[in-house]
């Protein structure tokens, strides 16, 4: 029997800055020199991850509650968005398998 997969907390990379501009988010990755625009839901997630480290499930629950969408839809949208942020190197994992912070 396989062990259950532990869900790690994630947070916004310390190299990323963001700003709310008229309800959308502008993200800047200082090292990569990339600028990303995200919608209101993306901004909500970025703001949450900027405040504290959260698991993907916690984020999905927060999105479902804030935007009044069903849990499955929120889970899938959050997963997709986090994948995009990981691709932009905008996330870092907290308490990775080695016990320390892991890059995202």
């Amino acid at each position: 029997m396989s062990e259950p997969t532990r869900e790690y907390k994630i947070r916004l990379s310390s190299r990323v800055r963001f700003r709310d501009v008229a309800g959308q988010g502008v993200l800047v990755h200082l090292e990569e020199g990339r600028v990303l625009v995200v919608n209101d839901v993306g901004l909500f997630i970025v703001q949450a991850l900027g405040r504290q480290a959260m698991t993907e499930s916690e984020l999905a629950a927060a999105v479902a509650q804030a935007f009044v969408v069903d849990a499955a839809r929120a889970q899938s949208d959050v997963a997709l968005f986090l994948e995009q942020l990981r691709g932009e190197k905008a996330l870092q994992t907290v308490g990775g398998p080695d016990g320390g912070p892991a890059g995202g």
Partner: protein
Amino acid sequence: MCRVSIQGLTPGQRQTIFHNYQQYIPGPGETAGGSDLICLAGRLDGPIGLPPERFAAGGQYAPLKRRTSGGIEITGFDFRAQLAGGGAEPLRASLAVAGEEDLGRPFALENFLRIVFAYHVLNRGGLLLHSAGVVYRGAAYLFSGRSNAGKSTLSRKAAAAGAAVLSDDINLVYREDDGYHVHRVPFTGEFRRPGESFSGSGTFRLGGLALLEKAPALTAAPMQPAEGVAGLLTGCPYVNDDPEELPALMDILTRLVSHAPVIRLGVARDDSFEAIMAALLRCSENV
């Protein structure tokens, strides 16, 4: 604006620099009084010794920049500079070049001055924007865009149509009591100003902002404020990757795009300057 007093120059170097940057450098015999920045120029102890590829970013030459306890250290292919102060304090700088003749040449000095201008202007609530700046019907229009977006081509079309070109590479935007104004700076790209004569000081009311892109046909569409901020942010050199300066820069850009919405402008090779301006003005009026 930004006036830089450079000390430690020979009379010949001073004359050459003054010739290239008259409005920004005190002339021979003038004192440093009223300068925004006092820079001490000198020689490096030895060559920088870094390969040219270390100074490449996005396909363009970009001096290396890092914050230290003493301020901002800038290393170029053939110069090293230190920038300190800012905020309430006046900026102070030192500039050391590999060869004495480098101080009289535009390359090292211009790259240094571009960075100095970017920080100084931001401290004063303005911004330096990679853009083609053209004067049309008495107002300045800025066309920002990545390298090869068509800034120099648009500048050539504007000049051929009789419009004044402020710069095809970089322009300065300041918020003043009566709105935003564009100031000419002494930096150009491929398109060199053929000694144009501007009335007054080369300052014009900001007429509009566009994000320039190459396209198969002429298109113009308003951008959402966040897209506008993001688009312009990539065109704010030297300060847009500095975590200490980014909040101020974002504030300035957010205010700017709320005043002057950014138009995404797709321009084809054969589009005339008049057609480009007509599309930009029509779109701006409908925002």
